């Protein structure tokens, strides 16, 4: 029983670290979204884009490289999109962190399980790079 309780306390500290990481990235993402979007609204408040019809052609940059280039030029929408992208990658950070912790605990079964989840996420995130 003693070993079980020790395991639980180990896991509790692991959970506390993941919790802190999640909070930090959600907060940073929300700040970027608010700054980029807020600034965009200040300058474009009188337009109303048509959101009724869907066009799957991109009116905004969406690859990380193009985004960073636009952020460098202080483009509001690019900053907003960086925030959104950061939010999307928050779960990836969480899975990466779990892999690190499971490795430290020599729990290779769960290192493997976490890697499968990571690959699924990367498949989706890198899907736009398909040939």
């Amino acid at each position, binding site marked *: 029983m003693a070993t079980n309780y020790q395991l*639980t306390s180990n896991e509790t500290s692991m959970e506390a670290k993941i919790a802190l990481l*999640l*909070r930090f*990235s*959600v907060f940073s993402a929300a700040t970027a979204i608010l700054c980029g979007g807020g600034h965009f609204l200040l300058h474009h408040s009188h337009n109303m884009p048509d959101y009724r019809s*869907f066009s799957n052609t991109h009116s905004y940059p969406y690859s990380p490289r193009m985004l960073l280039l636009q952020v460098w030029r202080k483009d509001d929408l690019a900053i907003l999109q960086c925030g959104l992208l950061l939010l999307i990658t928050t779960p990836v950070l969480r899975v990466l962190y779990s892999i690190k912790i499971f490795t430290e605990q020599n729990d290779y079964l769960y290192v493997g399980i*976490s890697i*499968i989840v990571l690959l699924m996420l990367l498949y989706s995130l890198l899907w736009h790079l398909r040939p």
Partner: protein
Amino acid sequence: MNISEFSLLVFAASLLAGLLGAMTGLGGGVVIIPLLVLAFKVNIHYAIGASLISVIATSSGSAAAYLRKGLTNIRIGMFLEIATTIGAIFGSFLATRTSTKVIASTLGVVLLCSAATSVRKRKQIFANCPEMGIARLLRFDGFYPVDGVMQPYWVCRVPLGFALMVVAGTLSGLLGIGSGAMKVLAMDEAMRIPLKVSTTTSNFMIGVTAAASAGIYWSRGYIEPMIAMPVTLGALVGSMLGAAVLVRSKTHVVRATFAAVIALLGCEMIYSGMTGKI
């Protein structure tokens, strides 16, 4: 209506949805899509994209709060995430091949089911299978606090739970929702996980599930930044407030009211979907 007014109204509506979603445990995602589509006349693909981002934000935000209490079973969560991410990727491919009529009607049916499950009282069924093969191999058993004392628990019927999680992931990827209700159902009914543990573990999984479809949504242009902004910020603030209010309020009145609203929105989505108004 100009874009500033639009953003402000969508922010307010999402805040309310996030607040009620957190207070009732139903999540805000399910009501945000019908709100955007029916009230703000936003295209359903953009609504789905914005909702999905807000689901990731609220899940990561609240998972942080739950993780501190040490109730989440990270092993069960991580293993079942294989199932939900497979489903989510399949669902997001399905979303681009499915007509808006079908998507709207399916969402309507999901809304009706969520309303029904929220009224149903969850009862604790204790697992009586400590020697189960797969659960034992994967070391799913754990401890959770009951009146301050750590109690052990076991997990049953892992393959059934896994299969239900693939379905939950598919719905999440197709409709841009967290499908928390379905995840909780799989863990409660199939796997017999204690209620406190299943609720928090489901919350923990929602973010990863949603992220698995978000990449594909992003490349397909579903995520329109100026719609995603007010929805995400509103839902985030709302869910934080909801978690704070939760401690001191009569949730059953709120729950019944919210369930009724969800059911109404569900009927409206089915009707609008069938008649091709969306």
